[in-house]
C-alpha cells in the first residue's frame, strides 16, 4: 500500500512540473501525507478565489501534497507577517512587496532561489527586467508574479457625456484640469471631474519625479524639495477652486476607504488614481466602462511613472520543505492552467509565453490593462531603488500634514516645510 502511494505521488510530481522526480528519490522516505506547505498572501475576494483555485489545481496534480492558503487584507498583512517572523513561524511562501523585500532579505528571513534555478524553477520565458527587480545583493530572493504601474482610471461614459476629449497617454496637468472642469460642469452638483490628489503620497512622488527631484534619492535620502511640494499642493488647491476636484472635507472623509467606496466606483468622481493591476478589480465593481490613462505629464518635465513588480513570491527561512515550495512557485508562473486562473489580477505576468497564452481569452478590462501597459513602456522612467526604511511611516506623516493643509489649518508653505523636515527625521531615525 505504501509503495503504491509513493509511486503514484512520484508520477504525479513528474507530470506536475517535471524536474522534481530526481530530487525526490533521494531521502524523504515519508514522502506522503506530511508533505505540507503554507502560502500566505494579502488579497481581496477575487484574488483569494483565484489563489485557492490554483492551490486546488496543484493539489490535484500532486496527490498527497497539502497546501494551506492563508490570506488577510494589505493592512493586516505586514502585522501578521512580522509576528510570524518574530515567532519563527513564517509560511513557506509569502507574498512580498518591493518596498519590504530588502528589509526581509537583509535580516535573513528569506532564502535565495538561485540553487533551484533551472532544476526546479524555470524562468526561460521571463523578461529580464522583471527578474532583476527581485535580486538583492546579487542573489534572486523574490519571484515576480506580476508587474504594474501607476494609472489614472476614468469613467469613459462620464468623460464622453461631458464631451471631453484627451489623449490618455500624452496629456498634461493643464489638459487634465480642463477635462475635469468640463466633467464637473456637465454633471449634477456633488459630482466632480477628478479625485483630489493632495492626500495621495504616490501622486506626490510622481510629481517629484516629474520635477526632476525624486522624493527618495538613489542613496535613500529625502531629495524632494519644499518648493516642488508647494507647487504640487498649489496645483491641487487650484483644482479644488476651479471645481475640477471635490471640496476638501469630502477628500478627508474618503481617507482609508476601500476600493468599493472610491469615487470612481460610487460615481462621485470621473477620474482617480490607482495601480494598474487594480483596473480589473475596479471594473468588476463599476457599471460603466473604466478607461486607463497615464498620470498627466509636466510640461518639459521628466517621466513621473515607472513600472515595478507589483508583487513577489518569496521562500522563507522557516520553510521545512523548500523543494516542494519552489515547485509550487514554479507552477504558479509557468503552469498553463494555473496562470490562466490567475490572469492579470496580480499584475502583468513576467513570462512572455504566459502573456501570449492569456491574450485570446482576455476580458475587456484585462484588454484595457494590457493595452495600457504596452502603451506606457516608452513613457515611464527607470525603477528607483526600493524606498529606504521608514518610508511607510513617512507616508503616514505625509497624509497627516496634507490633511491639515487641505483643510486650511496649515498654510501650504508651512506644511511643505514641516513635512520635508519630518520625513528627514523619520528616515534618519529608521536607518
Amino acid at each position, binding site marked *: 500500500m505504501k509503495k503504491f502511494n509513493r509511486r503514484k505521488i512520484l508520477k504525479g510530481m513528474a507530470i506536475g512540473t517535471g524536474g522534481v522526480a530526481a530530487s525526490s528519490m533521494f531521502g524523504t522516505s515519508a514522502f506522503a501525507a506530511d508533505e505540507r506547505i503554507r502560502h500566505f498572501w494579502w488579497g481581496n475576494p477575487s484574488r483569494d478565489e483565484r489563489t485557492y483555485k490554483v492551490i486546488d489545481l496543484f493539489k490535484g496534480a500532486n496527490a498527497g501534497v497539502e497546501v494551506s492558503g492563508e490570506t488577510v487584507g494589505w493592512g493586516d498583512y505586514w502585522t501578521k507577517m512580522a509576528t510570524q517572523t518574530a515567532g519563527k513561524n513564517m509560511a513557506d511562501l509569502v507574498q512580498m512587496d518591493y518596498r519590504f523585500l530588502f528589509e526581509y532579505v537583509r535580516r535573513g528571513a528569506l532564502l535565495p532561489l538561485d540553487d533551484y534555478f533551472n532544476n526546479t524553477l524555470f524562468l526561460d520565458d521571463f523578461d529580464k527586467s522583471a527578474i532583476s527587480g527581485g535580486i538583492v545583493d546579487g542573489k534572486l530572493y523574490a519571484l515576480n508574479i506580476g508587474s504594474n504601474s501607476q494609472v489614472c482610471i476614468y469613467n469613459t461614459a462620464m468623460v464622453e457625456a461631458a464631451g471631453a476629449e484627451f489623449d490618455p497617454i500624452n496629456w498634461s496637468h493643464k489638459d487634465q484640469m480642463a477635462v475635469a472642469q468640463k466633467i464637473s460642469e456637465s454633471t449634477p452638483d456633488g459630482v466632480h471631474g477628478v479625485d483630489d490628489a493632495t492626500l495621495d503620497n504616490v501622486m506626490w512622488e510622481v510629481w517629484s519625479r516629474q520635477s526632476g527631484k525624486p522624493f527618495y534619492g538613489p542613496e535613500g535620502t529625502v531629495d524632494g524639495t519644499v518648493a516642488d511640494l508647494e507647487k504640487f499642493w498649489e496645483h491641487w488647491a487650484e483644482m479644488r477652486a476651479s471645481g475640477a476636484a471635490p471640496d476638501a472635507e469630502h477628500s478627508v472623509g474618503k481617507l*482609508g476607504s476601500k476600493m468599493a467606496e472610491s469615487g470612481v466606483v460610487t460615481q462621485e468622481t470621473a477620474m482617480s488614481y490607482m495601480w494598474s493591476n487594480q483596473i480589473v478589480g475596479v471594473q468588476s465593481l463599476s457599471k460603466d466602462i473604466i478607461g486607463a490613462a497615464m498620470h498627466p505629464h509636466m510640461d518639459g518635465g521628466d517621466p513621473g511613472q515607472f513600472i515595478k513588480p507589483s508583487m513577489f513570491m518569496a521562500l522563507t527561512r522557516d520553510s521545512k520543505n523548500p523543494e516542494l515550495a519552489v515547485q509550487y512557485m514554479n507552477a504558479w508562473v509557468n503552469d498553463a492552467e494555473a496562470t490562466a486562473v490567475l490572469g492579470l489580477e496580480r499584475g502583468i505576468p513576467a513570462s512572455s509565453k504566459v502573456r501570449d497564452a492569456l491574450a485570446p481569452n482576455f476580458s475587456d478590462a484585462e484588454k484595457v490593462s494590457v493595452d495600457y501597459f504596452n502603451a506606457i513602456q516608452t513613457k515611464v522612467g527607470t525603477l528607483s531603488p526600493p524606498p529606504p526604511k521608514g518610508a511607510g511611516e513617512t507616508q503616514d506623516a505625509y497624509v497627516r500634514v496634507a490633511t491639515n493643509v487641505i483643510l486650511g489649518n496649515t498654510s501650504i508653505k508651512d506644511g511643505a516645510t514641516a513635512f520635508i523636515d519630518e520625513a528627514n527625521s523619520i528616515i534618519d531615525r529608521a536607518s
Partner: protein
Amino acid sequence: MRKFLAKNAPGYVFLSPWLIGFLFLALGPILVSLYLSFTKYDMIGDPRWVGLSQYEYMFTKDKRFWKSLQVTFTYVILAVPARLAFALMIAMVLDKGIRAIGIYRALYYLPSILGASIAIAILWRQIFNIDGVVNAFLSMFGIQGPNWIANPDTSLYTLVVLAMWQFGSPMLIFLAGLRGISPELYEAAEIDAASKPRQFFAITLPLLAPVIFFNIILQTIEAFKTFSSAFIISNGDGSPADSLLFFTIYLFNEAFKFFRMGYASALAWTLLVIIGAFTALSFFASKYWVHYENEKD
C-alpha cells in the same frame, strides 16, 4: 503555614482561574515587554540592548508622544465625567420604581455590550459622516453640519459622545448603590421640607460617594485604554491629522505598523505608570470626599 493555608486556601481556589491565567499566560509577556523596552527590536532580527534611550527619545524628542498624551487626557477628562453623570442620571430614573425595570436595565445596558464592537464603531462613522444622521437632523433646522469625523476639530467629540452612550456598567453599579441608601433618610428629609436638589446633594451624593469613587477609578482606567472604537473611526492611525491619536493607537502603530517593538514596549510601560499614578492620586484625594458608612472613626 498550615494555619495560613486553612485560612486562605478557599480564597486562592476561587482566585485560581484568574491566577493561573495570569501566571502562565500574562506574566511572561509582561516581563518580556519590560525587557524589550530597553532594546531596539524590529521583530525580524534580534533585540538589541539600548538602555534608557527609548525613554529618553520619548520624553525629549517625540512630538507624537506628547500629542497622543494630549488627545488621551482630553478624552479622559471629558468622557469619564460625561459618562458617569449620564449613568447616574439614568440610574436615578430607574430607581424610582418603574414597572418592568428589568427590561429597561437590559435595554440601557445593551449599548455597553455592543459599544466595544467593531460594528458600532463603523455605525458611528456613518452617523457622523457628512451625509449622516446627525447632519440630516441638523439640516431640518437649516444648519449645514460639517463632516464630524473628517474634521480634526470635532472628531474627538464624536468619541466622547460614543463613550457617553455606553453608560451601562457604571449605571448598574450606581443602581445597586442607590438601592443601598435607606429610604428613611429621604422620608426624614421630606418631613423637614428639603427640596429635591437639596436631597440629592445632602443625601444621595455623600452616601453614594464610595460607589462614585469606585466608578471613577474603573472608568478612568477604561478610558485610558480606549482602543477599538478609536482604531476603527481613525482608520487605525489616529487620522484625521492625529486628532484621534490615542495613546493606545500610537502604541499599536509603533509596534505593528512601524515594527518598533522596543519603543512600543517603552510606551506601554509609560502608560502603566501614568494609569498607576492617576489611580494613586484618586485614592489619595478620596480621603477628603469619600466616607464609608462602616468606618470606625
